[in-house]
């Protein structure tokens, strides 16, 4: 069933381009079938899976590589499926209203469906290599989605940036997977987590895997691709930021942390440090954005940092809080992006300096925005508050020493920033005060058209869920508990609670809200302060200069390695032959015994003739002379064949040589009589030296090879079987047409191809009227 659902995504993705031409934007409703069916099926499995019994399906794919289509739906996978497919279905419904009919929409819907399927694959896969395959599929499909408006240079650049950053991380992750998988002796994720391998190699592998996860989840210093990726159409952003793509890294860290965090000293400082830094950087940057969507994008960066801190610690209570945050974030962030999409769609701007009074014009949308933003900010009675409470509570009791205290301080500071930019979003987008023609624009707001109700319903649905879950935690508690329990059995025992009593945790929450409110009041001062800091080095700058440097390096390396001169290429290859096998021959082998000068005086004489003819061919100045020398070599070799006891060879050689000389003459008729001297890159001395070296090497090799035989020649059997089995006395011929006839079949095919090549090369040179 799991594979079938993935297949459904693939089928709809392939069918969507054709459907899109007929249905227009309604194609999204058809494509919603895939995530919808997945979510519905997952709901039927929920009861059993959340109790701890996983549904698995294994289809053998490349057993030799340890690569199986192993799919596994456990509690945490179910939680992720609920997000990926549940929110996915909502976003497909939203897309139907967001897009007006335009060409390429069907293709877009197809890619979006493929993207949903890939992400589903990431969370369901139970094989490291399979995870990698789906992981890269999300990178590729997100590249296509971000660059959908391909007429815009900024969209193309953003798409390229996203795929370069996440693709590079993905490659590092693959290397890490191989290291971990080889150390564990299996590539099965559940197998590795059940019996985690240890040691330095595994540590190195984990760092590489974390690198991949951090690029995907936009952790500092790889965070810059995510804000740029908002060049994508808003439904894509909503999906990418809330339930997919960036959650993949969080997902992977959450899977690995319980098994590996305690065993490797670097894990917690690295993961939690990065998470806190990301949370602060993202929040700080979000505070100075004027574009509502960009503000949310930096907000996502910040929230991702938060999630990584929680799920990366590998401590049961924190893991539980992290699972709660993943759900909460999925709901409110998707709703917020959809709201931005509605505003953009109706008002044609997202600049909070220009927008004014939208709240009065579309109160429903404003309410959804307020609820979602409040959930993000951690206002009580909403799901976001519950997860933040759980996080504070767990961090307070985590016993992580100074690092834990720092993490708590960082998370509180990050939450203060979150409150501030959440308020900035709502007040800026829907408030009345800020939009008084700043930046020379007329305020936009009071007269924008109202959105169609169905356009608002998807976002409203998510907002309602946020409220319901916030008021009655029991609604989501089984999902979060079951999900966390699948990661770490101890984490499954925790519960979400609305009221913990008058504890330090509550104090921290109050502190967060108060400090956040202060920051909102002093927003102007903060903005001015940030403006003064603007010159700081940015990760984008490092990225672009690294990219330019890479391109320059490639130019230079190509110029050296691929200089276009055939003799130089050949020279390098031949020198390698001399250096590697040649050196081995010189140092490791001894000449065998039983060397004779020649079989007979005649052989010595003929060999001498051939030798002279060959040297003559090398130094002849006229083309015909060179060809005649070549013919001499051939006839001489034929005589040598006779002496060696090979009449078939001798006959063939004689005939071939005759024909070859005729063909040479046919062609040389056209060419100048003498070889023209030309400018050489490789000097004469170098060529003679290389040629001499090759000659000595081959001569020595032939002596050693002839004496190195240890096994009985296979031809003994051929000699015995030729008459009884193949009915032929000429063993050479029997080998050609019977024992090794397959070789001969290949050979005559080559001859046919060569003849075709010759005829077409000559015919191509003719003028059309000559081509009879």
């Amino acid at each position: 069933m799991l594979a079938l659902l993935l297949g459904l995504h693939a089928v709809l993705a392939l069918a969507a381009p054709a459907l899109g031409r007929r249905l227009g934007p309604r194609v999204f409703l058809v494509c919603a079938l895939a995530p919808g069916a997945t979510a519905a099926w997952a709901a039927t499995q929920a009861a059993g899976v959340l109790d701890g019994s996983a549904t698995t399906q294994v289809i053998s794919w490349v057993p030799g590589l340890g690569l199986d289509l192993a799919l596994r739906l456990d509690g945490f996978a179910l939680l992720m499926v609920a997000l990926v497919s549940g929110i996915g279905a909502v976003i497909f419904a939203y897309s139907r209203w967001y897009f007006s009919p335009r060409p390429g929409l069907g293709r877009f819907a197809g890619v979006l469906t493929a993207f949903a399927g890939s992400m589903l694959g990431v969370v369901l896969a139970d094989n490291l290599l399979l995870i990698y395959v789906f992981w890269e599929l999300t990178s590729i499909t997100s590249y296509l989605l971000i660059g959908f408006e391909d007429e815009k240079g900024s969209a193309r650049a953003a798409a390229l940036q996203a795929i370069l950053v996440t693709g590079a991380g993905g490659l590092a992750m693959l290397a890490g997977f191989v290291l971990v998988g080889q150390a564990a002796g299996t590539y099965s994720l559940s197998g590795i987590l059940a019996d985690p391998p240890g040691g330095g190699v595994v540590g190195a592998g984990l760092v590489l895997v974390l690198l991949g996860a951090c690029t995907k989840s936009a952790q500092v210093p790889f965070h810059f691709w995510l804000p740029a990726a908002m060049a994508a159409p808003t439904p894509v952003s909503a999906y990418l930021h809330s339930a997919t793509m960036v959650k993949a890294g969080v997902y992977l860290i959450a899977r690995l942390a319980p098994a590996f965090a305690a065993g490797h000293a670097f894990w917690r400082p690295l993961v939690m440090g990065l998470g806190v830094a990301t949370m602060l950087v993202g929040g700080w940057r979000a505070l100075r954005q004027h574009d509502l969507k960009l503000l949310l994008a930096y907000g996502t960066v910040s929230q991702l940092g938060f999630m990584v801190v929680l799920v990366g610690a590998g401590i049961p209570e924190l893991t539980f809080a992290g699972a709660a945050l993943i759900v909460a974030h999925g709901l409110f962030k998707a709703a917020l992006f959809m709201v931005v999409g509605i505003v953009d769609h109706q008002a044609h701007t997202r600049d909070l300096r220009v927008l004014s009074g939208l709240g009065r014009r579309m109160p429903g949308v404003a309410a959804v925005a307020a609820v979602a933003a409040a959930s993000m900010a951690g206002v009580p009675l909403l799901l976001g508050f519950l997860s933040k409470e759980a996080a504070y509570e767990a961090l307070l009791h985590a016993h992580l020493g100074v690092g834990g205290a720092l993490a708590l301080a960082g998370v509180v500071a990050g939450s203060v920033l979150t409150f501030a930019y959440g308020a900035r979003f709502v007040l800026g987008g829907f408030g009345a005060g800020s939009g008084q023609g700043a930046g020379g624009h007329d305020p936009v707001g009071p007269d924008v058209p109202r959105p169609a109700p169905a356009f608002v319903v998807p976002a409203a649905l998510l907002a309602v869920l946020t409220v319901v879950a916030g008021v009655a935690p029991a609604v989501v508690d089984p999902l979060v508990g079951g999900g966390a329990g699948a990661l770490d059995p101890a984490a499954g025992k925790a519960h979400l609670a609305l009221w913990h009593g008058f504890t330090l945790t509550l104090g921290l929450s109050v502190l967060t809200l108060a400090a956040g409110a202060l920051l909102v009041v002093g927003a102007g001062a903060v903005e001015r302060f940030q403006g003064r800091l603007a010159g700081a080095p940015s990760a984008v700058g490092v990225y672009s200069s690294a990219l330019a440097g890479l391109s320059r390096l490639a130019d230079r390396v190509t110029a050296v390695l691929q200089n276009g001169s055939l003799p130089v290429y050949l020279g390098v290859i031949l020198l390698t032959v001399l250096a590697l096998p040649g050196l081995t021959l010189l140092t490791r082998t001894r000449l065998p015994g039983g060397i004779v000068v020649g079989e007979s005086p005649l052989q010595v004489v003929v060999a001498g003739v051939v030798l002279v003819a060959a040297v003559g061919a090398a130094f002849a100045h006229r083309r015909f002379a060179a060809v005649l020398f070549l013919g001499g070599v051939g006839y001489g070799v034929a005589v040598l064949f006779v002496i060696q006891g090979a009449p078939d060879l001798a006959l063939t050689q004689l005939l071939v040589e005759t024909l070859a000389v005729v063909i040479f003459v046919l062609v040389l008729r056209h060419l100048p009589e003498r070889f023209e001297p030309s400018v050489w890159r490789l000097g004469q001395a170098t060529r003679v030296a290389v040629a001499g070296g090759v000659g000595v090497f081959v001569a020595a090799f032939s002596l050693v090879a002839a004496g190195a035989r240890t096994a009985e020649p296979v031809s003994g059997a051929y000699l015995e079987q030729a008459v009884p089995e193949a009915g032929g006395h000429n063993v050479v011929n029997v080998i050609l047409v019977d024992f090794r006839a397959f070789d001969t079949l290949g050979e005559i095919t080559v001859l046919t191809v060569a003849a075709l090549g010759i005829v077409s090369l000559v015919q191509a040179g003719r003028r059309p009227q000559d081509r009879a």
Partner: protein
Amino acid sequence: MRVTGRSTRPPQSLILDTCLGAVFHTVLVFSLFLLFAGHNAPGGGFIGGLVAGAAFVLHYVAGGTGQVTRIAPVAPFVLMGSGLTLAVLVGMGALLAGGQLLESGVLSLDVPVLGTVKTTSALPFDVGVYLIVVGLVLAVLGSLGGEADRPADEPEGTGEARAR
């Protein structure tokens, strides 16, 4: 192959033509002998094919591509194609007969006049090789040889090439 139609060669002598006719057929028959004897004595498809090719070269030397084209029974690629098909069919035949690909068996036939003729299924394979080698030689003579028939001082296409 193509007939060039504007040969620059002098008209041929009757004596040369007559001699050539005799020698040509002798050589062809000899090539067939080599082909059929090849299983038991020096010879075989390659050697037979090359000898037959050499017979056509004689014709080429005497009368150019035009004469070769007149003499050759079929176009070179028909020869090569049928040769390749024959070889593959022999291999498939062994497969159908329950053996391995390209495995051969011994056949004995009673032919009324000749008596008992013993042959093997490898012979058709060798015939395929023979046809391909003959086709290769004919293809080369027809293409490269055809070009060589042109007057050497008026090479084709080079006028434009030089102008460029």
